[in-house]
């Protein structure tokens, strides 16, 4: 998935990983390499300094519901997040058409989907008018609080 970034800078991820490994191995705090126009510098920020990643984590503690891919989309400016835990339905009943489909234009207040919680079906309304870019959940899937449901742009 290593797409070329938009700017002129090329990021050699493998090189960074390699240098990070060298820092570990050697106990160095910083490595800086310059060659012609190119320069790369990696640092631990201090000799005895580490980032806190690896506190105990048993299984990959994925949420029961959240699809892995949707994680990054939570911060998308057009994301409509679930206001509750529940099960999500894309149409008013199994025989009907979905409330919306990708590519549809919606108005603020239009129902996008339903979330059923405690036997109550809660309509989720579009917070703004726009185009339904993506629908991130499928019919009948469980969703957690804050999980992105739909992207409107």
């Amino acid at each position, binding site marked *: 998935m290593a797409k070329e970034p938009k700017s002129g800078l090329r990021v050699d991820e493998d090189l960074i990983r390699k240098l990070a490994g060298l820092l570990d191995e050697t106990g160095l705090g910083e490595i800086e390499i310059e060659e012609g126009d190119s320069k790369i510098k990696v640092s631990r920020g201090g000799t005895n300094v580490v*980032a*806190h*990643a690896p*506190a*105990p*984590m*048993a*299984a990959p*503690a*994925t*949420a*029961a*519901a959240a699809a892995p891919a949707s994680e990054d989309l939570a911060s998308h400016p057009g994301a409509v997040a679930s206001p*509750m*835990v*529940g*099960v999500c339905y894309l149409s008013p009943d199994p025989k009907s058409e979905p409330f919306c489909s990708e590519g549809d234009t919606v108005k603020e207040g239009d129902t996008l989907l339903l979330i059923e*919680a*405690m036997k109550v079906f809660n309509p989720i309304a579009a917070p703004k008018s726009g185009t339904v870019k993506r629908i991130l959940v499928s019919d009948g899937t*469980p*969703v*957690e*609080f*804050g*999980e992105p449901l739909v992207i409107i742009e």
Partner: protein
Amino acid sequence: MIEKVLIANRGEIALRIMRACREMGIQSVAVHSTADANAMHVRLADESVCIGPPAAKDSYLSTAAILSAASITGADAIHPGYGFLSENADFAEMVAEHGIKFIGPTADHIRLMGDKITAKQAARDAGIPCVPGSDGEVTDFEHAKKWANEIGYPVLIKAAAGGGGRGMKVAKSEEELHDAFDVARNEAEASFGNRAVYMERYLDRPRHIEVQVLADQEGNVVHLGERDCSLQRRHQKILEESPSPALNKDERAQIGKTVADAVRKLGYQSAGTIEFLYENGEFFFIEMNTRLQVEHPVTEAVTGMDLVREMIRIASGHPIDYSQDEIRFHGHSIECRINAEDPFTFAPSPGMVNEYHAPGGLGVRVDSGLYSGYRVPPHYDSMIAKLIVHGRNRGECLMRLRRALTEFVIDGIKTTIPLHQELILNDEFINGAYDIHWLEEYLKKREASGGR
């Protein structure tokens, strides 16, 4: 058997319950607010569901969110921990209505014990000793004398309409009774426009002693001895121990039996605790906690039992398959509650834990969801860790506690570790000579002397 437990709580108790589940081969579901996405119990659980924003009322107190989470994860039981929804009878009822096992007592028992009046009546009827008092208003001195003799001195004369200590008078003997009775009635009239007073035994310097029980669905009840939780500040327990330095073996067995018999009579099931004030060899009912308690590990240390496991077994319908005689008490245990607070002003101190290092070695248990790099959120209770130490006797336990507190590192935020380090060097504490007022007086003296 229960196969998947949703843990409707957070922090150390969520981790505690998750550990018990894992050790029983039961799947665990953590629910969490957005503020707790990186919490240890979330990281370690088999599944996790974000149920709401940081505010507890929209997450940990949201029955709808928790039941939905149970439903989407297929949990067949819910453990409420302590606090939050643990003593909410309506929640217990809703859980049951959804066909999910509530790991705790029935909604009826929660309700019964959740109301001061019905709780006291039920306790008294079941044979639990309560503070003796006049049955209602005392209207003249002759009745006051009669009641005082029945209740036993010292007696407290309280305005029926009163509260907050106003209109309260103590009489230590019959000589003092006449004046005290008059003054109390006059003050009552002046303060509340109502001369009505009632009387009860006055407890001067009681200890807080509570008895732990386990009761199954078939009426088997055992008690697991007592905990002394007299070290309190503003009714918050700070340090607990078992056994109580104030009880001997016979007293322990006797109050234990009284409580177990009463709990059997009540038809209660699950773990429960009856709290007492204790003075001069007598016990007086305060309330019954119909849930797991923060300080349950000291009982686990001296009995070798796993209370959360027992609660889960009982909720699954398993009978208690050991008799009271098989429960043996070994040594002594003390728990220190470690809060993210200034150790002496008790100002909350949430924030980033730069470095976390728990003490280890023989006889030391730590229950905590902390880890290096964890950020203590400001939204919830300040208790962040419990240090539980066990020794073959109280002296050994105290020495071990002193050693363990020295090793405990929680860097980046203020904690109450320094308070505990000070307390366990205090002679009165070392001698077990403390009551429910002791800690506040200690802190007052300490402050007056400019922090020692």
